[in-house]
């Protein structure tokens, strides 16, 4: 069957089960969008306000569903606007495919209108990228993009297609998508050794990360926790894998992790690191991290072994496969004394500023209490993000979407939109700060256009909170460019966008507004005026250890 390049794109997407794409049209993408018009009964296109919003939406769609997120854009600025979204997905290992159009091949390299070498730009932030200027290569590139995005350590792939290719005809034959192989390269000897370390350790702890979600290993992890009777701590990427209320759950690890988690890691004689990478926000001082412990790491990415922290035993594998093999070799154990000890350490820190009116912890807890348990929480980046990570009583996988590695302010609104399309029956709650919100609040128009009932809760402290907090503690209160004091009137601005906005000063006002918001069928903002001196605690400064922890 002869098809043009644009139709080949649509056919391959459909063959991979894609029914939703996010994007923004433009000159070089005209053929693609013309074909999309014909395929509109099979592929739903979500038009955002800005390509960055579309890229975060594709990311949020993927994180909340496990499917591959797809984003379209035109050439030049359309493509460069995707960059932050692609980089965000890359560092958090999110499978995503960006399809950009470029100028016609005859114009490539001639500084044509809206020409940019997006494959060059995205080289460091994609698992792989393709520049397709021959229509015969297009189907291969697309099929491989799905394979690469979803195999091994997942991540984004970009395909840049010249405009002539999008209209050129080529023979196209439907084929089977590549099977995604589960990496599994370890010996029984290796496994037995590791199981033996398990069986002789007295003070073990599991520290897990986003790899548990990527490998869908929750059940195996839960089984290990129960059988081996071991306390757990987790990175922000993995909130919700183990029920927050599980007594063995010590809370978040790292810079703003709980006292219990960080102290337990410090005292442990065995750290079992599952699907995680010892980032500088976890192992703040890699030489002193878990210094009394033997460290076992199971990860799919071999380059993460010994990258930041020296590992004693490792398995390179898909986590689920590795745990299935390991579980029968681990003897049932009881670590009662150890668990009693570490669960007595402080799990929740609750420090309020002197002028506290409405505290973030109360807002977050009220939010969670009044909404159904299946809600998906999305954050931007900064203080509110950490408060959300700390205070939401996470219960479900794939229901806490946050830019963990890149720390992208402005991630939230787009990601919330993507999550809503992937989960039309779930309530989406978007926590943000006044700094982050101003970065991409233009996506409100997208939420209004599609009538998405996303509730955005803005922690408005009139400052760039996290940086302000660092300046308070480490920079002698020299508040260089962090006093935002925006004059934005959120209810009025919301009205202008065509949505409902509230502004609240007390917890009662918040709860009233929130109850109303839950009844409204479209998007809502609730701006909460919080005190600028509220801090994120506890905190271990960069390079520090539990001994340097700031608790109040």
């Amino acid at each position, binding site marked *: 069957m002869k098809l043009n390049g644009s139709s080949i794109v649509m056919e391959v997407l459909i063959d991979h089960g894609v029914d939703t794409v996010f994007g923004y049209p433009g000159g070089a993408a005209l053929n693609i969008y013309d074909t999309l018009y014909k395929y509109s009964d099979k592929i739903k296109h979500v038009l955002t306000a800005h390509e960055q919003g579309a890229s975060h939406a594709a990311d949020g769609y993927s994180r909340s569903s496990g499917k591959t997120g797809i984003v379209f854009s035109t050439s030049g600025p359309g493509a460069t606007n995707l960059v932050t979204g692609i980089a965000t997905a890359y560092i958090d290992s999110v499978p995503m495919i960006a399809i950009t159009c470029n100028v016609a091949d005859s114009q490539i390299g001639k500084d044509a209108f809206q020409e940019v070498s997006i494959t060059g730009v995205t080289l460091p932030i994609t698992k792989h990228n393709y520049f397709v200027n021959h229509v015969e290569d297009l189907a291969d590139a697309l099929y491989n993009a799905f394979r690469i995005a979803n195999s091994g350590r997942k991540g984004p792939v970009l395909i840049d297609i010249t405009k002539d290719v999008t209209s050129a005809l080529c023979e196209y034959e439907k084929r089977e998508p590549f099977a995604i192989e589960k990496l599994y390269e370890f010996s029984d000897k290796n496994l037995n050794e590791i199981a033996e370390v398990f069986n002789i350790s007295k003070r073990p702890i599991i520290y897990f990360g986003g790899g548990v979600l990527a490998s869908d290993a929750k059940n195996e992890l839960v089984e290990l926790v129960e059988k081996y009777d071991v306390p757990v701590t987790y990175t922000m990427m993995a909130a919700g894998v183990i029920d927050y209320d599980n007594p063995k759950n010590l809370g978040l690890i790292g810079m703003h992790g709980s006292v219990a988690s960080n102290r337990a890691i410090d005292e442990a004689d065995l750290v079992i690191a599952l699907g995680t990478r010892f980032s500088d926000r976890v192992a703040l001082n890699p030489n002193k991290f878990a210094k009394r412990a033997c460290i076992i790491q199971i990860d799919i990415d*071999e380059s993460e072994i010994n990258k930041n922290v020296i590992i004693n035993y490792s398995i390179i594998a898909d986590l689920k496969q590795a745990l299935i093999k390991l579980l029968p070799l681990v003897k049932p154990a009881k670590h009662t004394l150890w668990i009693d000890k570490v669960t007595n350490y402080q799990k929740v820190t609750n420090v309020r500023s002197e002028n506290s009116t409405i505290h973030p912890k109360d807002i977050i807890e009220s939010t969670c209490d009044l909404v159904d348990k299946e809600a998906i929480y999305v954050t931007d980046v900064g203080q509110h993000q950490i408060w959300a990570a700390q205070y939401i009583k996470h219960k479900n996988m794939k229901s806490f979407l946050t830019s963990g590695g890149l720390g992208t302010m402005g991630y939230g609104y787009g990601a919330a939109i993507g999550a809503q399309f992937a989960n039309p029956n779930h309530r989406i709650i978007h926590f943000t700060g006044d700094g982050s919100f101003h970065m991409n609040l233009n996506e409100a128009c997208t939420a209004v256009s599609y009538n998405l009932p996303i509730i955005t809760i803005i922690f408005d402290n009139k400052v760039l909170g996290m940086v302000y907090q660092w300046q308070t503690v480490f920079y002698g209160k020299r508040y260089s460019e962090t006093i935002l004091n925006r004059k934005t009137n959120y209810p009025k601005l919301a009205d202008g966008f065509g949505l409902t906005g509230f502004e609240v000063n007390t917890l009662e006002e918040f709860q009233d507004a929130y109850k109303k918001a839950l009844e409204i069928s479209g998007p809502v903002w609730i701006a909460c005026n919080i005190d600028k001196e509220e801090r994120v605690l506890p905190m271990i400064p960069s390079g520090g250890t539990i001994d340097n922890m700031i608790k109040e």
Partner: protein
Amino acid sequence: MSTREVISILVKNQSNVLTRIASLYGRRGYNIDSLTVSTTNDPATSRITIVFDGNEQILNQIILQTKKLEVVKSISILSPEQSIYRELLLLKVDCNKENRSNLVEIVNIYRGKVISLTKNFMIIELTGSPNKIDGFIEMINCYSIQDVCRTGITGISRNEHI
């Protein structure tokens, strides 16, 4: 502990392959001594030979990070005992009636070739192991060297399969 290793990478012969490798090393801050690219008997495959000087942990990271690139088919360390390294040198040196024959004598001892000769300078070609090239340059150093051009190491394993 510092280590010097020669790494051999088989890559898909596509445009931008070198950019991908160079970009990876650039952004991760890996310093390399030399890098050569050549075709193999398989037109779909090229060989990149990299010489790296640094500690073992970074070497390990280079190998593992390189392995993750889609264009990389395989990567191996060419250990000195199990491999042959060669390098090509082109060297331009001033010469005159008095010292010309001395220079030619040294070139002959090293089994190099004089590939261009004028009244005032000669160009010498020499192939060999990096040590031999270093030794030769050391010998010529007391003459007035105008220019030195080395290809960097290319290497191959002595084993049947790598």
